[in-house]
């Protein structure tokens, strides 16, 4: 029953849009620090991604209802957008982490907050567990309790991993 249209209508990005929102391969492949991927396909009155971007990579909006337009050549991968976006729709993905792993910088507002070295479940757009990842760093760029979790996970899932879930540890 779940065709692309109904999936999109319930908040899941479709293949076509995933491709469209992907940074250009040539810039992305070797970009240390990674590039921002912003999954915000609907015009809504909201602009913190652009007004917070310190590099001017997310271009200022002419109309507050604009969807984000990114100049990937200016993006530094700082992930301030990931921390600032009220919709948790900004992610940074660094493909240079290792030969088979990418570093995903993902917004996180749940408890418990995982720590460096923890294993976490890496989730896709419908919450499916795609892989186990390792937390490399936890930052709080805006000091406002939205964490950005840096997690290393298989590089071939760069287009799919968009959230993490803390795994209960046996004590």
């Amino acid at each position: 029953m779940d065709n692309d249209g109904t999936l999109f209508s319930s908040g899941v990005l479709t293949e076509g849009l995933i491709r469209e929102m992907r940074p250009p391969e040539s810039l992305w492949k070797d970009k240390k620090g990674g590039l921002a991927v912003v999954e915000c396909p609907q015009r809504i009155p909201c602009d913190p991604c652009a007004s917070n971007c310190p590099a001017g990579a997310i271009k200022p909006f002419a109309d507050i209802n604009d969807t984000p337009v990114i100049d990937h050549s200016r993006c530094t991968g700082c992930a301030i957008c990931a921390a600032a976006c009220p919709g948790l729709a900004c992610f940074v993905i660094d493909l240079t982490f290792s030969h088979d792993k990418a570093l995903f910088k993902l917004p996180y507002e749940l408890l418990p907050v995982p720590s460096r070295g923890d294993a976490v479940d890496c989730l896709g757009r419908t919450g499916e567990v795609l892989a186990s990842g390792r937390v490399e760093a936890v930052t709080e760029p805006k000091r406002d309790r939205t964490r950005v979790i840096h997690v290393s996970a298989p590089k071939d899932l760069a287009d799919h991993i968009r959230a993490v879930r803390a795994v209960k540890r046996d004590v």
Partner: protein
Amino acid sequence: MREFTTDILVIGGGAAGLSAAAEAASAGAGVIIAESDLHLGGQLVKQTHKFFGSRDEYAGTRGYKIAGILMAELDEKGKNALSMTSTTVTGYYPEDGMFTAMRGEESYIGIRAQRCVVASGAQERIIPFVNNDIPGVYGAGAVQTLMNLYGVRPGNRALMIGAGNIGLIVSYQLMQAGVEVAAVAEAMPKVGGYWVHAAKIRRLGVPILLRHSIKEALGERAVEGAVIAELDDKFAPTGAEKRIECDIICLAVGLSPTTEILSHAGCRMSYVPQLCGFAPLRDRTMRTSNPSFWCAGDASGIEEASAAMIEGRIAGLCAARSLGFDADMEKLDEYWSRLDHLRAGEAGEKIRAGIAKVLRGRWED
């Protein structure tokens, strides 16, 4: 009955009321804010998520922090403003310009005011289904209050009815409070709230069941589950049903403006579906057809805190001006341009259509 006298009475201390009071008081008017609740802030105090909108309306800031910013502004500029909490305005007696209010549980007071800004917000709606009166069936706003204001986890596993922004955001906040969300059921063929809010909970594994509504709450003395039904294009049940395991059911099926005081004051009202109920006719200064009354925020039509704050500023400014205070009327155009910006996009289409139905030219004096 103890009596108070002021220039402007602001009914409701939410986003709209606080903004109206700050604006009117900084123009020099004496203001009393009457707020039913134990504290000021209205809906904002329980909103732990970051707001949308533009920087001027504190986008990217969490709702409860915005309440703090507005209260600080009132403290600073509002030397002439007196806030009364636990104070519910119950009536208006035009013959002597007197409002009655209940203070606490026991006492009544009178407030004599020349002008009134009604910023009384909204009420949650409920829909009919079997057993909708058993414990465990909540308004989504009530659940949000329990969790975010009082630190009470309302249950273990929730079914959310309605995928508008409130249903989507409260689902997320339930998860933040450690409550599992079994599903969000939505009668329409697509989510009504912002797509990104839906994506955020989908990513955490919450199914959003489009074209579904609740048929029945299960349980004798408290919710032990629910039956949801699939709907066809005409919103009629197809016969396909599903049992959902849950111990709370949250209804996020819309809000209606709280307008009793406006009706009481004889303000001309109109039923406007896009504004979610009866809404007062108003001019660009937010003045109603009763020249002593202004309206602002959700009480004037369901919208957002961002718009409520601007409407509050307009109402406060213009109510003060009407009493001869030195209000800078140039701000009116700036406020309107901010409102127009917020309402400009597709997301504002409904609100624009609603406002068009209630906006009048200047009232005759």
